[in-house]
Structures are given as structure tokens and as C-alpha cells.
């Protein structure tokens, strides 16, 4: 260290007010940041890729291969063949049906079921929740409706509806959505109520912003993370519900190939032909787990507080 002090080092720095204002930020985009934050989690990205691949394959394979998942073998020798042995990569089931084709057809049905339920639940829930939160007049009614509906054990609704209607794709959709949308609506309502009286909303009203745009610009963007998370989590939930309904004998018709049906059929023969349960279960778990994690990670990423 030198004793000599270099005066040049102590030259006063120029102050530029504009530069000070500018701060250290780059031009910012919400979605890009969300995306970047999401991409930071290697697990999430891996699972997103896996999920996309699974979904893509589940929809592409049945459409492209033309394999009939219900094509039974009249030759009993072809029943219950283990994987390999000229029986497709996943083997055949008790009727000689190709487990590979069945698994992917099943995945497609279950995903479709999940998507439709997610669409209805979240769509209806968002709209109803936004209205519920905004219109004070219906709050009492909606709250009582919510109390009543959530107080009816969900199995009662599921079973009664499966009974009154015929078990089938849309029955399950109706049964699951009949209560699902309300809990999302309730959640949205609570959010909307806190947002409703926030100052920036009053500011918008003072600026003469019409209610439609207030909901669209001031309320809904705050619910994006909720929407995405709920939608993503509805997939594992609805698949689980389908498995449960199958367990109590009110699932999709058994000639409909779905993961729930495959699991319940495979379960019966688990001791004997474990692969008949293992394959559909693995695919099912891969789907539900990836949707679950991706949904959660995306919800985290879509929160701007996590962006920096």
C-alpha cells in the first residue's frame, strides 16, 4: 500500500439526475419475466418438457396410429401376454388388447376429461367469482349457496349425478364441475373483494374507466397465477376423481379407455399381471405429478414479486 494519495482518484463524480432516475432496470415485460423465472427451475423445465411430450404423444398417437385400444383378440393365446414377446411394448390385457394403445388412448381420454373440467371449473369459477366479488347484492345469496353446496359431501353429488344421469364423460364433467366451480369462484371472489376497494381501482374509476375494462385490466391480471395454478391442478384432481369413481363402480363406462378404468382393471389383476397396473399407473403418475409441479412452479413464476 502506498502512502501517496493520487488526487485524481478523488475527482468529484458528475451527477446526472436523469441517470439517477433511470435506475438499474432493463426494459421489463411481465410475461417474459414470468417465463424467465420459470425457466430458472431446472426441474420445472424438465417436467414441462415431459408434460408437453406426454400430452402431445397422448393426442398424437391415437390419432396417427389408428390402433384400436378395444380390439380384442379372439385367440385366447393372445390374452394376458407379458410385455415384449410380440405383444407390443406394454403387453396385452385379459382380452388380448394392446396395453400400449390402451395406455395412450386412456391418457388422452383422461387428459381431455381434465382439460374440459379445468376449462369449465376455471372459466365458470372466474366469471362467477368476479361477478360475486363485484356485485354486493348477490353476495349473501352466493355465500349461502356456497355454504350449502360445500356442505353436501362431494361423494353424494358425484354418486347421485352418476346415478341420475348415465355414467359417461359428460356426467363426470358435470358431477365434478357442479361443485368445483364454486370453490374457485369463492377464491376469486375473495381476491376480487380485496382488489375491488384497492386505490388503483378507485383511480381507474376516477379516470372514467368502464367496469368491463376495470375487470379486464385491473382484476383479471391479478388472477392469472390463480387461473393457471387452478387449471393445472384440476388435471391431477379430475384424474384422481375418475379413478375414485371407477373404484366405486360409477366411473366412465368400462369400454371407454381411460386411465381411471385402466387402473381399476389393472388393480384386479395386480398380483398376477403387475404390468397391467404398472404401465397405466406410471403414465398417470407422470401426468399428474408433472401437472402438479409445473402448475405450482408457474404460479410462483407468475408472481412479479419473484421476478427479480
Amino acid at each position, binding site marked *: 500500500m502506498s502512502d501517496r494519495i493520487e488526487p485524481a482518484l478523488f475527482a468529484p463524480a458528475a451527477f446526472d439526475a*436523469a441517470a439517477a*432516475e*433511470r*435506475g438499474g*432496470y432493463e*426494459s*421489463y415485460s*411481465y410475461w417474459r419475466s414470468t417465463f424467465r423465472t420459470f425457466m430458472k427451475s431446472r426441474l420445472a423445465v424438465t417436467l414441462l418438457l415431459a408434460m408437453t411430450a406426454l400430452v402431445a404423444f397422448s393426442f398424437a398417437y391415437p390419432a396417427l396410429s389408428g390402433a384400436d385400444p378395444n380390439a380384442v383378440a379372439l385367440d385366447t393365446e393372445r390374452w394376458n401376454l407379458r410385455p415384449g414377446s410380440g405383444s407390443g411394448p406394454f403387453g396385452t390385457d385379459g382380452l388380448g388388447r394392446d396395453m400400449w394403445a390402451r395406455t395412450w388412448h386412456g391418457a388422452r381420454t383422461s387428459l381431455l376429461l381434465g382439460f374440459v373440467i379445468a376449462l369449465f371449473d376455471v372459466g365458470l369459477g372466474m366469471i362467477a367469482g368476479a361477478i360475486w366479488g363485484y356485485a354486493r347484492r348477490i353476495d349473501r345469496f352466493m355465500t349461502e349457496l356456497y355454504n350449502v353446496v360445500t356442505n353436501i359431501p362431494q361423494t353424494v353429488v358425484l354418486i347421485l349425478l352418476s346415478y341420475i344421469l348415465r355414467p359417461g364423460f359428460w356426467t363426470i364433467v358435470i358431477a365434478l364441475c357442479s361443485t368445483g366451480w364454486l370453490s374457485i369462484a369463492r377464491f376469486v371472489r375473495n381476491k376480487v373483494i380485496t382488489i375491488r376497494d*384497492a*386505490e*388503483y381501482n*378507485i*383511480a*381507474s*374509476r*376516477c*379516470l*372514467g*374507466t*368502464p367496469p368491463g*375494462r376495470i375487470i379486464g*385490466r*385491473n382484476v383479471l*391480471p*391479478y388472477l*392469472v397465477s390463480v387461473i393457471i395454478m387452478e387449471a393445472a391442478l384440476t388435471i391431477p384432481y379430475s384424474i384422481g376423481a375418475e379413478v375414485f369413481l371407477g373404484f366405486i363402480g360409477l366411473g366412465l363406462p368400462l369400454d371407454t379407455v381411460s386411465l381411471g378404468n385402466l387402473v381399476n382393471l389393472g388393480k384386479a389383476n395386480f398380483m398376477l399381471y403387475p404390468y397391467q397396473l404398472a404401465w397405466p399407473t406410471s403414465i398417470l403418475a407422470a401426468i399428474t405429478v408433472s401437472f402438479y409441479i409445473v402448475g405450482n412452479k408457474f404460479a410462483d413464476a407468475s408472481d*412479479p*414479486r419473484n421476478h427479480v
Partner: protein
Amino acid sequence: MNAEPLLSLEGISVTFGSGRKAFRAVDGVSLELMQGETLSLVGESGSGKTTVGRAVMRVLPLSAGSIRYRGERISGRIPAAAERGLRQKIQMIFQDPMASLNERAKIDYIVSEGLANFRLYGNEAERRAKVERAMEEVGLLPEFASRFPHEFSGGQRQRIGIARALAMEPELLIADEPISALDVSIRAQVINLLNKLKKDRGLSYLFIAHDLSVVRFISDRIAVIYRGRLVELAPAEELFARPLHPYTKALLSAVPVPDPDAERDRKIVAYSPSMHPYGDSHPTWAQALPGHFVSGTPEEIETWLGGPGTVPT
């Protein structure tokens, strides 16, 4: 005062809730605001001052009285066209710069939100120009337009709020405690900005605050509100020099003095409504001195003006 008032409140009341739970937040407030004037409305939190501001902005409905702007009634049901005009002419600045900006919208959208609502521009270029001008006016860089609120400091955000109001080219700004949420160091910035705008644009302000010390230097007149009622209204210096109502005195006694000796001797005066000898009689709103109004019974006012039984200050 001979000119026509810009804004006049005529005995307005605002009630929250209904039935037994009804709560009257503002109770029979009357005041007039002149063109180019800064009128401050001061009171502690819960006194109804913010409610008055919001009632003017038509965010809250009146339960009694009326509000006129340039002589036209602007409270209650009014034609859509009138409402439209009003939205441009009267704007508001909010107390909390953190809460008053939509976190999920870019500054560009926030500042031009009002412009877009009324299509106050011919084309996109014109809109951008207006946004940039408003931002420059409050000392923000135009390139900030593409950023989000959370990237800004409190002072910057408050300036964004002001720019949003300015973009509408209003005549009257209702400033609802615009600086109380800010650091002391930044307060001066914002106050100076408001003063500059008043000078440059001939703006009028209804300035809402809970602290008399803040408003002394920007106000032409000051109104003191207590529990939804006005208790005193006077030109700024007059009020400081000669407060009449005990509540005003109590408020003034709480203002710190920048002189250490005086500060040491400063006594805080407590106020309680029970100080008033109101039995069956009600206080009235009366002009005690020219331009100096106060709420009280004639006897009280007599006393406050220095008659018998003066309360020593």
C-alpha cells in the same frame, strides 16, 4: 369574494351502511373553492376528509346536499356527457403510491388510461406524445413508459400518479394526502412539483391532509374537519395566526416548531368534544372574522374571539 366558485359543496353528507349500523362519515359540509385556489382540508384520520374527496370524484354517493362545479350540479344522477366532461376536468392524486398504481399494468397504460377512456387523442403517436409530455412534466423519463410500477421508488410512483392525472389536462386536482406516505426527503419534491403545476397550468387544488404543518406553505385557505363536520375555515396564515376553534388549536399545538427553544416549551393541547357547553343548542357555522369561519354557538365564538373567559393559548 365576488368571483363564481369553481367547486362548491352545499351541505353534503355521506353515509355508510344502513339502518341501525348507519354511520355518517361526512355531515353537512359546505365549502367553496375558487379558481386557481388551493384549499386544504385537514383532519385526523377517520374525520371524513378523504370521503369528501371521493364524494367530489363521484366515487361515493351523497346522502344529502349537493356539489356544484362551475355552477352545474355534479352530484347524484347527471347526464353521461356531463359525467364525461367532469372526469377530465377533475382528477385525483392518491395517498398511497404503492396501492394506487395497478401493478400488472405498464406505466404507459397507467398514464394513458384516462386518455383512452375518452379517446383524447387522434392517433397512437399523439397518445404517446401526450404520455411523454405528462411524464416529462413530473420529471420522469419517457422511456419509463414500458416499465411496471414495482420498479419505481415511492416518490417516482407518486409522480406517475400525478402524471396520470395531468395527462387528462384537468382544471381541478383533488390531492388526497399525496405526500403522507412518502419519505420526508421526497415530500418537498412532490410539493414543489404541485406548486409548479399550479403556477404553470393555473390548476386549482383541493388538498387533503392530516397534518397542518404540511399545508401551511401551499394553501390559500385551510378548512379543518372533525368527525365529518367542518369546525373552522380561514386563509392559511390567518388560521395559523389566530385559530379560534379549540380543535384547531389542539391540531396546531401538535405541529413541531423548527426552533429548539420554542419546541421545548411547546405544550400539546388536548381536545375533547365535551369541552363545548352544547346542551340543547347546536353549534352554527358562522363568520367570526372576515373570511374566517368557525363552528360554534354565538357565546362560544364570542369567547374565542377574546371575550370573557378566554382560554389561554
